[in-house]
């Protein structure tokens, strides 16, 4: 009497299919589609230029992606080889569990993202047979990467029992502070998973901003990467805020705390993050001939004040983000929070901003983006009142979602 591999696999697929939020799936789709758009844009730009790229060069670049893919897994993945309590207390041998872990690497989404993201590159630049071989090679390399990370991160058959970290920096005497608005910042600092993800992607976008600002042969790439960096910082952080608060929304709802206040806190937090991003990008103007401080200011205003506002329109339509989740079958606490509608809004606002920067002469795009940003600052209070009215109309539906993880 023992659990079979088939049962375990069925359990995992069922869990994935019944996960109401499909959050991780949407997040991965977002990443994949993002890369697809870039690849198609590069392909058509090169074709317009009449530039021919040798297939071997494409293959080498694609293979080069296995290294960041591996690094990404090292940074983001935690040891999830430990059995969940509901399995550990059942007749399931360690060897059977090890077999399942090995097998599950073949459909583990973190091993599928990289090859799928590079799928267009395989077939746009390389003949079909070669493209197929390259795609399979990338997939197997990613699976191999998954095995390496799993082996390195494996810490035994028990959840680590670390000494509890102390967060006490203030006594009750001096404990009065911004605890309502502070939820944003503290949740970011205290959730390892949230912090790691945010830092990783921030560094990723910032490094690309530096690289492209040094390359004046394609000036648009510099401002695009700076724009994406600022957009990520100002729009992502507030989005996570509601998913974190959803965990304890009952405790907020039953207290005299206005929803407008929660929204305004997130808006200001996004503004702060975007401004910090803008300040980090300003030095890039020193060595970049194509990047102007006004582009950066316009990007900050547009992303932090306008996009951030639009993104918050539907932010409460989320499921709780389990910041402390562990073990295998709980998706490492990531069963939230990207929604299909959010992805559409994200692409739309990014598209508008990028189209402005690309198609309009410098000062025109700066004026338009800044004007939209300033419009956001002027309109945010009435806008949030409208958002709150929408929230209140459907509040029970949302609150039910928060409690039914």
């Amino acid at each position, binding site marked *: 009497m023992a659990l079979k591999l088939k049962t375990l696999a069925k359990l995992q697929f069922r869990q994935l299919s019944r996960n109401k939020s499909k959050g991780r799936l949407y997040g991965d789709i977002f990443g994949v589609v993002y890369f697809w758009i870039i690849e198609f844009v590069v392909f058509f730009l090169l074709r317009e230029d009449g530039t021919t790229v040798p297939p071997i060069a494409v293959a080498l670049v694609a293979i080069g992606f296995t290294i960041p893919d591996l690094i990404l897994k090292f940074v983001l993945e935690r040891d999830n080889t430990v059995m969940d309590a509901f399995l550990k207390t059942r007749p399931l041998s360690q060897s059977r569990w090890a077999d399942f872990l090995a097998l599950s690497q073949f459909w583990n989404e973190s091993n599928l993202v990289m090859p799928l993201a590079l799928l267009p590159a395989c077939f746009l630049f390389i003949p079909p047979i070669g493209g197929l071989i390259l795609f399979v090679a990338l997939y197997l390399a990613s699976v191999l990467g998954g095995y390496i990370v799993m082996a390195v991160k494996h810490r035994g058959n028990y959840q680590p029992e670390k000494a509890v970290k*102390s967060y006490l920096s203030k006594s*009750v005497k001096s*404990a009065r502070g911004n605890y309502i608005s502070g939820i944003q910042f503290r*949740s970011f600092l205290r*959730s390892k998973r949230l912090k790691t993800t945010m830092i990783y992607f921030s560094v990723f976008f910032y490094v690309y901003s530096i690289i492209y600002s040094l390359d004046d042969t394609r000036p648009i790439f510099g401002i695009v990467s700076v724009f994406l960096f600022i957009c990520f910082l100002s729009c992502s952080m507030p989005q996570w805020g509601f998913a974190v608060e959803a965990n304890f929304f009952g405790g907020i709802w*039953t207290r*005299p705390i206005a929803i407008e206040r929660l929204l305004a806190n997130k808006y200001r937090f996004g503004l702060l993050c975007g401004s910090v991003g803008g300040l980090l990008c300003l030095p890039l103007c020193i060595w970049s001939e194509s990047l102007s401080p006004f582009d950066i200011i316009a990007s900050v205003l547009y992303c932090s004040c306008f996009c951030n506002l639009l993104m918050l329109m539907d932010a409460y339509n989320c499921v709780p983000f389990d910041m402390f989740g562990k073990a295998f079958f709980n998706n490492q606490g990531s069963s939230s929070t990207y929604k299909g509608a959010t992805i559409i809004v994200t692409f739309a606002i990014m598209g508008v901003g990028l189209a402005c920067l690309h198609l309009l002469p410098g000062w025109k795009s700066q004026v338009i983006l800044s004007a939209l940003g300033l419009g956001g600052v002027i309109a945010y209070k009435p806008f949030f009142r409208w958002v709150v009215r929408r929230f209140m109309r459907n509040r*029970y539906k949302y*609150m039910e979602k928060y409690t039914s993880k």
Partner: protein
Amino acid sequence: MKIELNNLKKQYNSNVVLDVPTLAIGSGELVGLVGNNGAGKTTMMRLMLDLIKATSGSVTVDTMNVAEDPSWKSVTGSYLDSTFLIDIYTPEEFFGFVAEAYDISEQDLKLRLQEYETLMNGEILGTGKLIHDFSNGNRQKIGIIAAMLVNPQLLILDEPFNYLDPSSQIVVAKLIRKMKRDLGTTVVVSSHNLNSINDICDRILLLDKGRVLMDKPHVPGSTDQELEDYFLDAVK
């Protein structure tokens, strides 16, 4: 504070989980809700706190409909489950959060926390731990303290004795009685522990499959044979 439930009904599809034609809880009453699993105790409390939508009917607190007028929040303390706790905060920060929400001064917060020192038993403040890292019992205590800290006129507690050691159960029962006596707080408390309910409540409501089966005054400290018989009969 007076609470009234008028034609209150909650149903999921065709399944009626709560159906209370009328119920009034007077100001300063300490009401215990009892009933087996699925009786509708928590649903009733969630409706009182406007956490779920009533299929029909309303809950009013001092004539204010809780679904329309949020002013009840300023005078209500509640703890239903761990979703009322901010896991990423230390207890100090969480109490600070509550104080900020209710505009309680720093000095006042400190004084009020002293009243709960016996319950905290030196295990809650000053540990530096996040609420997430506390045991279920201590998390329960933090939630109860945060609800009572605001000196509410209405206190709603769902299963407050769960996870608590016997000594802490006695302390919580005393604190609830004291709050009612000193502040005239209206208290609604649910529990599966009949002894605790018998000890503190002056009115007991027995719920069964969403309906109020029994509603009777009670002398705190006495036992209710009719109530005990109901639960004994349920297993026969």
